[in-house]
């Protein structure tokens, strides 16, 4: 039976290195299958997060041959098998153990976003086309691959000042919801640090849900921030047109 060779990071916060494993190849196999095979037959304590195994929960995020991927969605037959497949934890977050990283920071960021706050006495009717865009944002499975690849977080480590693409998408979903009554542009400018994003679109490229993060979420939010906080004339127009205010 054909075999694949994997080099899997084994270690924890204090360090570690790549360990070699060989697994039998099966038709249609994904990298997570290979990791499970290693767990079940060679290294029972190999740590990996996973849940749905169907690219719907966003748990098994890691880096395969240096690229941010969901392990459950990465087919072995899409990788060159003449060289070892290198599987490592996401680089942006601190390693807990093996392929598991500490992603708690993301949950803290989420708490700071003002929640959905519906308009009072409004009728809850809208057209499908009015929510297509919001539904795109709500496809997010919180795999945090966009956070992992964003250079503001990955290279510059600015978790102190930048919420990251995932949470800009979340804010976009709230801001563009036809029933929401809040304005979050001050939060976007001062707390979420939207100005740090220089629209290199790395996040969009890695999104397994194919959310057009940069073009559909971040750029329109940047425009709102500019309108509200740097352009008094545009702000006046928005107010006169009945748009929401802080």
């Amino acid at each position: 039976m054909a075999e694949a060779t994997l080099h899997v990071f084994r270690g924890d916060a204090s360090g570690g290195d790549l360990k070699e494993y060989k697994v039998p190849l099966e038709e249609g196999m994904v990298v997570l299958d290979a990791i499970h095979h290693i767990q079940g037959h060679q290294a029972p304590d190999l740590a990996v997060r996973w849940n749905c195994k169907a690219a719907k929960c966003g748990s098994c995020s890691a880096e395969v041959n240096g690229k941010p991927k969901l392990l459950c969605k990465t087919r072995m037959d899409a990788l060159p098998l003449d060289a070892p497949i290198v599987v490592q934890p996401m680089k942006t977050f601190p390693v807990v153990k093996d392929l598991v990283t500490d992603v708690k920071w993301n949950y803290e960021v989420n708490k700071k976003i003002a929640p959905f706050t519906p308009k009072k006495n409004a009728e809850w009717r809208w057209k499908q086309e009015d929510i297509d865009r919001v539904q795109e944002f709500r496809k997010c499975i919180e795999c945090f691959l966009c956070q992992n690849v964003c250079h503001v977080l990955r290279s510059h480590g600015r978790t102190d000042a930048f919420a990251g693409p995932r949470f800009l998408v979340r804010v976009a979903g709230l801001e563009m919801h036809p029933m929401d009554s809040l304005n979050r542009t001050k939060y976007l400018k001062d707390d979420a640090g939207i100005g740090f994003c220089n629209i290199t679109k790395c996040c969009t490229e890695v999104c397994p849900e194919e959310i057009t993060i940069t073009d559909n979420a971040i750029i329109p939010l940047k425009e709102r921030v500019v309108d509200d906080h740097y352009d008094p004339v545009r702000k006046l127009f928005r107010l006169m047109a009945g748009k929401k205010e802080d």
Partner: protein
Amino acid sequence: MTPDRFETHDVDVLVIGAGGAGLRAAIEASAQGARVGVVCKSLLGKAHTVMAEGGVAAALGHVDPNDSWKVHFKDTMLGGKMLNNWRMAQLHAQEAPDRVRELEHWGAVFDRTQDGRILQRNFGGHSSPRLAHVGDRTGLEMIRTLQDHGVHQGIEVYMECTVTQLQMDGNRVVGAFAYWRETGRFVTFRAKAVVLATGGVGKAYKITSNSWEYTADGHALALRAGAELIDMEFVQFHPTGMVWPPGVQGLLVTEAVRGEGGTLCNKDGERFMKRYDPKRMELSTRDMVARAIYTEVKEGRGSPHGGAYLDISHKQAEVVKKKLPSMYHQFLDFANIDITKGPMEVGPTVHYIMGGVRVDADSGAATVPGLFAAGESSGGMHGANRLGGNSLSDLLVFGRRAGAGAAAYAAKAPAHATLDPAQVSSAERELLAPFERASGPDPYSIHRKLQDSMQSLVGIFRTAEDLERGIEAVAALRREAKAVRVEGSRAFNPGWHLARDLDNMLLISEAIARCALQRKESRGAHARLDYPNLDPSLGGVNSVATMDGEEVRVAQSPLPPMPDELRSLFEPETAGVKG
């Protein structure tokens, strides 16, 4: 040896599980003023509810104005072969519409009708289009909405934390013992009330749509705490799981494919459902469709990988991609199949357990003081077979009720009890023992054997002979698991976690097999080749499982009688269902 050697948290209501039921329970308990903690095995937002695809059933009447709670109630009871707890089915049908609207007011964004209201789709066993949905990712929408609503209520979430034992004061539940996945360190919770919302048992089977978390934890915690489980023989095989490639075998293919007009054919191109349920065809109930596919394959009319063909390619490609986007990607990514151009291969997969903790319909209270349960870990709501879409609504309706029930109980309960050091020490010893053994079987091999046994001996069609062999096999594995050995450290060690989960799966597998042996008839999801017909005398009894020392005991108890005004809804349909 005092319990306070460990990190300890005091809460009024401890919710175990953070899927739809757990989060809804936590939100309600918190809204009632209780101090709430939620413990979950995974990260927040990853629970199996995200895998629910097709929709949430509620008689909103947006697509069919004639729909009503009474029709929904009737469909649910008939789908459950009248074994449902009538009061749960009634509350569920009555309250589901409010729960769905409430979700919308918390920010959920459902697909719309032409006139701008929540759109509803057809599903098996529902006599009107009834499922509010978001494409085929309704569960994700629900869990994200509850998660984002809940975090602003001051609910403490203990992520990647696993409860291994409930703590008792006499016969009363007063807390829980748990470990942190990340470090392996132990933690205790003192609680005035505990809500179990741990989902199902699918991982006891080889072919399942369930994730690693579905290891019967709540069922086992409840049984060991002295609670009763009911109807454990009713394990739902979802008719349509992927059959190929091997790595995704069992992965769910939403019933929405059939709801949107998908057809099922055998290898001869025959729409075989006409031989099993000519009236409802593909939109028959799940028990019927699963057995039909199984039978077609068994009799040599299956597809190349041992399934049936499910085809939606007669619909416009754009419609398929809009209404079933994750199915489109799932088949393209995993099986190289474009479902807008050709059929999928599908077969039955273990999806859900109708049985669970016996609860009071109105409050979610179990038969043990201080213990509550909701969602898949509770029993009674779905009877012998659950209708698609009735799970998400169940989570909302009874999650809320259990949260309210637990908060009300906690408000009247005495102050936190001191945890019994002997119980805490035994929980600790149990967890550490596998590290201390010099030799012993590894948990993965025992798990594989359990899955093989349950799949082949306690599966979709059952016989007394197979079930008896199944009970013996599980008993042997229980003995083997007592000697299990794990390697490595306590930090994020999946082998160790599986060793713990195995105990729960083994115990509950035994309960399933024993209940299945006891019910000598075929009803809903429980099909006996040696008793192929309904037995009217068994239509009035629940199976009950309890713990006696280390043994699982099964018995029967009469169903609560349905009031006449509800019973009259069924004349004359039930003539053939129940005596």
